[in-house]
């Protein structure tokens, strides 16, 4: 009986379950299995162990790509956070024309012109939502105590917004790894391969260099890095928090 309770719900969720298993889990297994082969133009089951990974790490081009993504990711994440937070704080000051400014700061998010623009706008919205959610009483007590405005933002409000800051960092960082369109549009990875990224390296090996094994190996490395970024956050967010909530 308990197994077949909510049978309608099970049927309704069937597409989600099938997609999760075949696409999300299945594709990773597929990519991993074929990253252990020497597939070129078509996937063939010709086991070569971790050769592809060894070759990958010897590639100068891959080194450059990884270096780029680190520099890019670091600058991008910090830039977005700082600018986004500043903008949110300023807009929160009950300035005139708030909606106008908010409109301006967010439009690139809609059009996707360049990454820092987008990201800063995104952080601003997150932070603004957080700032607006802060209890009026906290502001009152801070002003009664005579704490300077910038001090209260830095030492009281920012720590209170920690979950949002963490969420923003994680989402931006996980998004940065995927960066492909933007670099392609701006520089096509050139001059030479100076601005290439791991995502471009993967796509190139898949579709123009017919080097499938290498592309699979690189994509698996990308996947592992995303997991490394997300795992601590997901652990905190979904496990620890539930545990505390239960107590």
């Amino acid at each position, binding site marked *: 009986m308990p*197994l077949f309770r909510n049978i309608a*719900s099970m049927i309704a969720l069937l597409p989600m379950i099938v997609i*999760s298993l075949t*696409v999300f889990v299945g594709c990773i297994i597929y990519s991993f299995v074929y990253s252990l082969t020497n597939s070129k133009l078509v996937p063939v089951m010709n086991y070569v162990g971790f050769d592809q990974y060894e070759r990958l790490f010897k590639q100068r081009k891959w080194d450059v790509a990884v270096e780029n993504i680190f520099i890019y990711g670091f600058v991008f994440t910090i830039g977005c956070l700082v600018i986004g937070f500043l903008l949110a704080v300023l807009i929160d*000051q009950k300035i005139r024309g708030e909606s106008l400014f908010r409109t301006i700061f967010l439009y690139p998010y809609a059009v996707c012109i360049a990454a820092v623009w987008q990201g800063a706008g995104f952080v601003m919205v997150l932070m603004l939502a957080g700032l607006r959610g802060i209890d009026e009483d906290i502001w009152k007590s801070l002003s009664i105590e005579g704490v300077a405005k910038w001090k209260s933002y830095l030492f009281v409000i920012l720590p209170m917004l920690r979950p949002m800051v963490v*969420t923003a960092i994680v989402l931006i960082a996980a998004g940065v790894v995927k960066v*492909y369109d933007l670099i*392609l549009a701006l520089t096509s990875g050139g001059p030479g391969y100076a601005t290439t990224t791991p995502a471009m390296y993967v796509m190139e090996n898949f579709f123009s260099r017919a080097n499938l094994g290498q592309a699979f190996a690189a*994509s698996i490395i990308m996947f592992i890095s995303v997991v490394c970024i997300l795992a601590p956050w997901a652990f905190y967010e979904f496990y620890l928090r539930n545990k505390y909530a239960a107590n």
Partner: protein
Amino acid sequence: MSVIPSGPRPKHLTIGRIGMYCFILVCAIFFLMPLYVMVITSLKDMDEIRAANILNLPKELSFYSWPKAWSQACTGFVCEGLKPGFFNSIKITVPSVIVSVGLSAINGYALAFWRFKGAYFFFGLCMFGAFIPYQVMVYPLLKIEDALGIYSTLPGIILVHTIFGMPILTLIFRNFYASLPIDLFKAARIDGGNFVKIFFYVIIPMSTPITIVAVILQVTGIWNDFLLGLVFAGRDNQPMTVQLNNIVQVDYGVAEYNVDMSATILTSLVPLFVYFISGRWFVRGIAAGAIKG
């Protein structure tokens, strides 16, 4: 002013407040700069673009780049402009949005109210999918679609957008439904409603706000997509972004920056339009996608 100020009114303009306005203005100019350059460049002719600074206003307006970008610019050997891409993008976006939002609403509803053993395990798997880099999934997914016989077709690209949109949309629908009062659901159950009936008569009528948010997220996301359209749509269904890239990245001939700029603006008109008519909802959409409830 019709807006009622909710904070203490600043007594006079202090140095700090002036500085603050200056900073915001500078930021606003910085944010508007690309749009400004794009618009004025599209209104210049090529001689003027070569001769003058990119920030100067055009001496005389020339509008020829707009119709050219729309219907004559060349992508490879075909010179039909962006027009076919525009219609392809619509053909891709409309069904993809409907299917993915519908499916995710059902998912969210089932997860919020009809939890069964193991449901949250699969929900977790699905959320996990939101963070897997596309590059890991592109090739195997291509193989799957090939086996199903829908690779490089319209249903193929629609399926791909549905798959990649599902995790975030399911999350925001689930969070929205979980925030509804549970008594409402219980009352409907007591009145004899089943899974399907409660969904259609109780839940859907209450879902307008979250549906708007979901539709905005999906329309902008799918319209701006480049990678998936390039790989999965096939030659006949290439979306506007792919054609834009083909126009801009010409390997031969002279690069016509004014046409490129017009084409870029034309491509971004749909998301811009969505953004401007739905500002408030748009902001809510970004926040909903990021903050969990």
